[in-house]
């Protein structure tokens, strides 16, 4: 959590809903208290002053998160958390103002592009379409051509915005992201950044259940392999 995070309670609620134990880590903490997964929640860390995620990337807890990620443990950055991961250099590229120049809060469809990550390995199939809400002003993923080629070659694009048939139509891209990117992985595939909010699609009373697949997948990946 950073000062200005505001989806921390929601992430906490949704992981607990799925049976996980959770704890809040404050931005000045350096001890990750032995957690198995780190979630960087959405919001407006440090007010998003300077640039979205820019100041949060330099908070003390991020050094610990870097070590945690380097050790191969799973890290998810959602929305503002994705922006922080990009600013912190844990993920390539950046998130720019939406092409419509307006904040957008709406359910969108995203297509699962790879099963090769702890976040997408459990119970999903390639090309599966998930309906998950977005709520952001700065969600248009940008990276240079070279980086994009690398992401494609490494199959590190986790999710892309699509329509009901899974097609990458212009209307289905809510923010003008390059290659319709909604979420990407790092090289080691243990760090996921995504603009849509899977934690908002866990409890059926308030927004569907497709987000469960992502959160449950990472929890499932922590289980010792069956023998």
């Amino acid at each position: 959590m950073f000062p200005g995070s505001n989806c921390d309670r929601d992430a906490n609620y949704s992981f607990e809903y799925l049976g996980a134990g959770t704890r809040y880590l404050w931005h000045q903490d350096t001890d990750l208290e032995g957690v198995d997964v780190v979630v960087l929640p959405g919001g407006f860390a440090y007010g998003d002053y300077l640039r979205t995620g820019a100041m949060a990337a330099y908070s003390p807890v991020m050094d610990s998160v870097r070590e945690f990620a380097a050790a191969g443990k799973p890290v998810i950055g959602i929305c503002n958390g994705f922006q922080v991961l990009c600013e912190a250099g844990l993920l390539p590229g950046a998130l720019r103002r939406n092409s419509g120049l307006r904040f957008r809060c709406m359910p969108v469809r995203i297509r699962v592009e790879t099963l090769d990550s702890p976040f997408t390995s459990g119970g999903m199939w390639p090309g599966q379409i998930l309906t998950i809400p977005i709520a952001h002003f700065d969600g248009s993923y940008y990276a240079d051509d070279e980086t994009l080629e690398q992401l494609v070659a490494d199959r590190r694009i986790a999710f892309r915005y699509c329509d009901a048939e899974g097609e990458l139509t212009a209307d289905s891209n809510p923010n003008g992201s390059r290659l319709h990117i909604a979420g990407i992985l790092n090289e080691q595939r243990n760090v996921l950044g995504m603009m849509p909010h899977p934690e908002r699609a866990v409890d059926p009373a308030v927004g569907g259940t497709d987000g469960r697949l992502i959160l449950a997948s990472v929890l499932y990946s922590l289980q010792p392999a069956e023998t």
Partner: protein
Amino acid sequence: MADAATEQPLHRSLGLTDDEYARIQQILGRVPNHAELAMYSVMWSEHCSYKSSRVHLKDLPSEGPHVLIGPGEGAGVIEVDGVAVAMRIESHNHPSFVEPVQGAATGIGGVVRDVVSMGARPIALLDSLRFGPLPGDTGADQAADRNRWLTGGVVSGISSYGNCIGVPTVGGEVKFENSYSGNPLVNVMCVGVVPIDGIMLARAPGPGNAVLLLGSTTGRDGIGGVSVLASASFDDQAATKRPSVQVGDPFTEKLLIEGSLSLIEKGLVVGIQDLGGAGLCCATSESAANAGTGMTIDLDRVPLREKGMEPFEILTSESQERMLVIVKPELVQDAIDECTRLGLRASVIGEVTDTGRLTVTRGGEVVADVPAASLGDGPLYHRPYTAPEGARTVRFADAPGPGTPPDEALMRLVASANIASKRWVWEQYDYQVMLNTVAGPGSDAAILRLPGTQTRIAVTVDGNGRYGQIDPRQGARHSVAEAYRNLCTMGAEPVAVTNCMNFGNPEIPEVMWQFVEAVSGMGEACRALETPITGGNVSFYNQTLDEAIYPTPMIGMIGIVKPGVVAPPAGFQKEEDIVVLLGRTGDELGGSEYQRSILGTLEGPLPALDLNAEASLGWLLRELISRGLLNSAHDCSEGGIGVALAEMVAQGQWGAQIRPEPGRDLIPWLFSETTARVVVAVGPGDLSELMELARGIGIPAAELGIVNGRLLSIRGMPDIKAAEIRREYERGFPRLMGSN
């Protein structure tokens, strides 16, 4: 004392009358100094003192089985399933006209702090907005481009501030009438929750306790906001008042929410009050007066944003994102440490005393010393009021007129600013954060989970200025009834009201008459529907030059949805469902959207209003919904049956085949805004049960037709494609805003 700039006595420059000035001298037993005069000027302003409205508000119904705290505190509080729910509406009309983004943003900040000051965590925001017509809409005039700019700015202000503080904007309404061209309305409602034993009050008890100021530094922004902006009409020099608009910092607000609630939860504070209108002066004097204590404040210890600020500026600055808390001396360090951990500034600025006086020092010298209670005990006016002679006529040359075929009229309404989908607006709001939003914007009312319970609450805010202009008393009654009906359509039992009364200059007897009538009408309706009023806000001087706004009471209402009850959506969901109209339809086009957009006029009489029928209809809807009989339900109000059906097609998956009531003229049947009506869709097998229940409670129920196909087919007029309705309903508003 004279004002150098205007050469008139200073008290008049500050908005005080000669009589008020004499009374201040009497209270102090001497001539007030500049700082004291400034303090009285802001505290005795209309905005803070309710000096014109108080005598009329005291008879409103404010008690009921759910009411815990009624009018007079930062927010009203009701009990729902063992949890306290705080509710409050504030206006920020004038600041939003001068600077729409910051005006709207700081309006949110203010009402959120009101709710936090009750110890409650804000869980929802709703906005009720009014602007002049947009370019291309009926009645658009030379102000249309500016109206569009204001609309976009206000929405973006709400979006940037509300989204950042992490409180969802779950509902509201946006409407357009010419009377708001010179004076838009920005009313924000906030709902919060708190355990019943955690409710805080604006009190400064215990002489010796420390007074702490939390949050932002104090600057020169918003000085005299309540007296300069909120308590005077606009002339054509509105732009020169821009320095009186405060600038919002939502990040600090978020820290302030978390800090304040954390201090309360940890038991570190004994009293809390937000700094809003009239700033430090109001918060200190009110909390001391409420507790029967006094207070000393040392201005040297108030963190300032800029150098060289005069005492009166520090005392009356309306810098945003500040909160006053009262802390026992032994807990001061703990409180400061907790704030520091959360990144929030906290400073001890004074001490509670037993003198009953607010004593302000700077550099060791007393700069103001007044009886604390006298600031809040402002003058009380019985302003004269008289009914206006003759109605103001409205004629829009660009309206198509009475010969318009019904299908064209319906499509024009569907795409009009007042009726078209406001998705363009509410997609800019984060309506989901906090994970309580069961039904969000675009529904007849928002439904929220009530944390810690299985119960849900339904919330709506409604107002109708056109109706108010024709008949302010009846218009206010209609607004209460519409809010009530919206909640019932979502399966809720309405239990409490908060309100915001938006009117012109109360010194004009005709405007005062509108206010008196509207307050009285609102009280009657709330009494009849057993929805007590837990508090409210009065916004006067909503006029520019001679033009007052339509009298616009906004009604915020909360209802209870019992566990397990699921509200049906408005849109048609199931083929072969039977479409039923609950309630009877009169020939009542007075004040209607049809009258505005097609005939281009505004004239009465308003539709009749039978509050008993509303209550019976409400019971029937709750019964039908809790039995799970309804597949769709939609309130039938603006635009009548025609618009209700078009919206049910636009928001659903199907068209419908409809037979109008036999022997009726099509136009008045389609577009009359007769009250106490709802359109529902039921499965064929459930129809007889519905009919029986309706008969039992005496609500007429008529089969209108059937859900099917891809057309809205109304006998007596050409069919309209469902896809066409959907397109116009969704694209109408973005088109008027000039963005696609």
